[in-house]
Each structure stands twice: as C-alpha cells, then as structure tokens.
C-alpha cells in the first residue's frame, strides 16, 4: 500500500511537470509544422511570460487586490498579451526577413533572438532568482496518518485542468475554425495555400502568437508551482519541451502532448526509483532511442526532407 501510494505520488509529480512541458512543446511543434523550422527563442518567451505574470501579481497585490481569481486572471491575461506580442515580434524580426533562405539562417537568427531576450531580462530584472508568491495553497492528502502520505495539491489540480482546457481549446481551434483550417492548409503546402488566396503571412504570425500565448500560461503555472523565476530558466525548460516535441513527433499537436507527459513521468520515476542524478540521462537517452528506431517520433508522420 505504501509503495503504491509512493508510485502514484511520483506519477502525479511527473504528470504535473509533463503537462507544462506539453504546453511549451506546442509552440515548437506548431511552428515546425507550419514553416518547418525550430523556434529557438520559444523558451525565452515562456520565461518572459512568467516574469510578466509575476510583475502583474506583485502590482495587483500592492494595489490591495485580494480576490484570488481576479489576480490570476489579470496575471494570465497580461502574461499572454506580452508573450504573444513577443512571439509576433520574434517572427517579424528573426524569421520573416530571412524566410525562404537557407535553413540555417533563420535558425541562427532565432538563437540570436534567444540570447538577446535572455540578456534583456537580465538587465531589466536583475540576474537573481525572484520568489514567486504561492497563491494556491493546500491540497488533498491520501493514506494513513502513520506512514507515507500521498498529497495532491490544489496547484497540481490547477495545472492539470488548465492544461486540459488549453489543449482542448487548441484542438477545437485547429479542427473547427476558419483560421485553424488555413493553418492546416499552410502546413500541408505553403505555396499552394498562398495560390489559393490564404494570407500565409497572417497564418504564420498567428502560429507564433498561439504558441507564445500557451507558453505564457505555462510560465504563470510553473512560476507558481516551483516558486521562483530567473532569466535563465527558459533555456532549460525550452530544451526539455523541445525534447518532448521531438519525442512525440515534431509537427504533431497530440504528439507534443504525449511527448510532454512521457518525458515528465520518465523524469520523476527516474528520480523517484533510481536517483535524481540520472534524471536528464534517462530523458535524453529516451530521445536518442526514439530517434534511432522511430525518427519521426511517436505520433509523427513520415515526411520527406524538411529540416
């Protein structure tokens, strides 16, 4: 019983972190699906989302607002607006001018963008870790009073529910809406979509904006869950989310979700049953194995020569 509770606790830990990987991975996978390129500045957009949310929360608390849902909604909206504009700007500055050139050029300009944004936040916000207020406290406990107790915090529940809502909304948007249909068309054949009268520039911008908005959601959630932000934390999270996207099959939205969850659970099980030291070893070995035996990822479609 004890061992079972321990297992479930590690599973919950893994699914929580995995859902946020999935939210960030969407940004990578959508951009790749549409223009076949990796947006290396995406991790930084997530980091900026977390900072914006923190600034909004601090501001509202200073103004005396105490009603939690209002604080969260305002913080979320602010973070999404700022991150989306960043996503849009990254596309305009680092991608559009070099689109259609050799593949390496946008890759390099995105890495430059990432370094720029990191250092910008360093300058503007300082390089220290800043504490994030834990707004959602408490949770459920399972298990007898004596031994190991499994806990499921309200924060973890919030993360699951928010991720679920975002993913469902995104799937509906892609499958039902007019813009979503255009997205799918552009992803199948950009040139043809253009000939058929789809404003491909607008669709590509929209992709960056949607990915950035979801990254902002992840930024707010993870900031609250972990408890601190620093200018470099977008880089590691971005790397993990990128791994998740590749694992699930880059270009595929359900793949990003699956990849995120698998990666999160693999990490928490490794630190739970082996040792925290091997966490990254296992997750990146997993990536190498998938790439060796199924190069398109778990749910990816085989494709001819894109990056």
């Amino acid at each position, binding site marked *: 019983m*004890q061992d079972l509770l321990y297992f479930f606790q590690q599973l919950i*830990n893994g699914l929580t972190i995995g859902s946020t990987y999935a939210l960030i991975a969407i940004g990578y996978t959508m951009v790749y699906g549409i223009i076949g390129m990796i947006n290396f500045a995406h991790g930084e957009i997530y980091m900026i989302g977390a900072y914006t949310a923190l600034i909004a929360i601090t501001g509202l608390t200073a103004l005396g607002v105490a009603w939690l849902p209002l604080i969260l909604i305002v913080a979320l909206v602010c973070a999404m607006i700022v991150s989306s504009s960043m996503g849009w700007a990254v596309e305009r500055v680092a991608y559009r001018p070099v689109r259609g050139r050799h593949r390496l050029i946008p890759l390099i300009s995105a890495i430059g963008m990432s370094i720029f944004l990191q250092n910008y936040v360093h300058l503007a916000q300082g390089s220290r870790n800043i504490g994030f207020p834990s707004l959602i406290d408490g949770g459920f406990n399972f298990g007898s009073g004596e031994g190991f107790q499994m*806990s499921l915090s309200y924060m973890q529940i919030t993360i699951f529910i928010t991720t679920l809502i975002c993913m469902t909304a995104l799937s509906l948007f892609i499958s039902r809406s007019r813009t979503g249909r255009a997205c799918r068309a552009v992803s199948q054949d950009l040139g043809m979509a253009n000939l058929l009268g789809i404003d491909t520039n607008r669709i590509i911008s929209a992709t960056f904006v949607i990915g950035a908005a979801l990254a902002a959601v992840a930024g707010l959630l993870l900031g609250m869950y972990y*408890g601190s932000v620093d200018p470099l934390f977008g880089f590691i*999270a971005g790397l993990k989310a990128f791994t998740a996207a590749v694992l699930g099959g880059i270009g595929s939205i359900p793949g990003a979700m699956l990849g995120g969850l698998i990666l999160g659970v693999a990490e928490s099980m490794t630190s739970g049953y082996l040792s925290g030291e091997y966490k990254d070893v296992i997750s990146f070995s997993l990536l190498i194995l998938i790439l060796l035996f199924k190069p398109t990822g778990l749910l990816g479609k085989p494709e001819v020569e894109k990056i």
Partner: protein
Amino acid sequence: MRTSVKKLVTAVSTSVALMGAGHAAAEIQIGIAGPMTGPVAQYGDMQFSGARMAIEQINANGGVMGEELVAVEYDDVCDPKQAVTVANSLVNDGVQFVIGHLCSSSTQPASDIYEDEGILMVTPASTSPEITERGYELVFRTIGLDSMQGPVAAQYIAAQSPERVAIVHDKQQYGEGIATAVRDTLKDAGVEIAMFEGITAGDKDFSSLVTKLKQADVDYVYYGGYHPELGLILRQARSADLDARFMGPEGVGNKDINTIAGEAAEGLLVTLPPAFDQKAENQALVKAFEDKGEDPSGPFVLTSYTAVQLIAEGIEAADSSDPFDVAAALRDGTYQTPIGTVEYDKAGDMKSFEFVVYEWHSDGSKTPVN
C-alpha cells in the same frame, strides 16, 4: 633625416616606457574577481564591498610603502569557464594580487593560471579543500575549509540523535565536497544515512526529490550547495508537508533564500563563519560600512576586507611587491585582522578557523544555536 626620425622614435618610446614604469611605481593594482552578475551575485556584492572598503581605508592611511592601492574589478559570474577568461585578462592587465574567486569551482581553474603566472591569490570565500591541496605557493584563503565546516554541521546533527538523515548536493565541487564531508563524519558517529543524492543546479522541479525524502522518513536533510536550489526545495517540501529539519553550509545563508522560500526558510540550520561584525574590536569598521550604506554582516564582507589587508601587510613585511616575497612573508608572519589572528600553514590555509551553527529565520535574521 632618417636618423633623426629614428632618434625621435627611440626617444618617444623610451619616455613612454619610463612613464609606464613611473605609473606602476606609484600604485599597486589589486584585482577583485567574483560574481557581479548571475545567480550568486549576492555573495559577489559582499566580496566587492569588503575589498573596496579595505582599499579605501589603506589608501586613506597613506597606502602601502607610500604607494596607492588600485582596485581592478572582474566579473566571473561564478562560472568556471568565465573564471579562466578573467584570470587571463588579469595576467594581461599586469595585476599581481587577486582577491578571489568566490565559488570554489571558479577558484580552482583560475588558481592554476595565477600560480603559473606568478600572481598571488587570496580567496575570501572558497572552502573546497582541493584548492590548497596542490602544493601551490601563491594560493591563500581567509576562510575555513569544507573539511572543517562539514564536521561542525555533522556533529550538530549527530548531537540531536536523529533516526535517519538524508544528504543532498548539487554535484558541484563545493556542494558535493561539503556533502561528502558531512556524510563521512555522520557515518563515523554511527548515524544512519538514508540517502545520498545529487540534483542538477539550475533545476526548478524538486517534487520527486521531496516525495523521496518523505518516503525515506528522515529527520534531517543536509543540503550541500547554494540557496537558489535549496530555497525551492524548502518551499516544495513545505507544500508537500515534509516533516524534516534542513541544514546547509554558508552558501545557502543569505537573504535571497527568504525571497525564494518565504515562510519555509524558518528554522533552517546554517553553518557560517562567526559573525565577525558582532565582535567588539570591529565596531569602528562596522560603522564605516554603515556610513557608506553597506551591510557588513554578510559572511564574506570581512573575509574580503582581511584578504586585502593581508596583502598590504604582507607587502610591507616583505618590503617588496614581488608576489613570491609576499607569499613567504604571509607564511612566516602572524597578522591581526578583523577575522582574528591569522597564521598560515604551508598549504596557504589558516591554522585555525571556526564555524558556528545558526538558525535562520523567515525575516532573514539568524540566531546562533551552539
């Protein structure tokens, strides 16, 4: 015509060289190398503030052998690669005395370069034993060693007769070194070590680790590393209702841990150098810091001050500003400093240095417990 041009060139270059020499004779450069930016910049602030104060006061009292000390500051971000770059630029700038570095993992590679290039280094903060284990002639410190600090922490834990203890570290030279020292002392004292595990510095998610600590049902958790990770572990442990007492080395003891961990920092145990700023004989110096609007209470402020003072007194004792002579003078002499009487052994370590266990509070204050 041609010869006169040649002569002119020779004359100009000679006078430039003389000017350079004259310039060097009037001042002694003191390099200060530590993290001005990056995740542990807070410690860098302590180092720079202490060293600058010492340089100011020494210059106000007429300098060293009539020469003025000039501070040259370098940012190593507490990154070993950056530290090597900094060490090389110190060499290029012709600096012969360095206060630094701060993080052991930066001090170690930088000290190789200093030793090769004949630069005297005094670190006010690096506690890793390996730094002075290599028989270097020009490496000194004004702080104790992990091999002194770890046992103090371990003896404190052992005295509370805990059932099980977990030891976690950040896999870096400083963190793992001190965690190993704690583990060995605890083992000798017969305490059961339930876990000895590394985490990755820079990680944010410690939920799996906290779950594991909960499962292991430990009374004490010793963490070897710095405050950004421990702050998060404390916070995530609190929200998961982990019932254990945490303890860490001086690398976790600063006010930044309160902004990260908040309430969860209450009751954290920290081994620190004794509060030099509380000593009666240092009150004039403490006032000088306060007049400048700086806080002398950080663990590395007065150790940095002392590092500069030792170099200055070493130069005077040796009656030479050659780093090798100064090093010999430091090894031979006994010096009265704000951190007490300093005597060096052959390796460049202080013959005695005391660590004290403090209890940390959620408002950033601390009280001694032993």
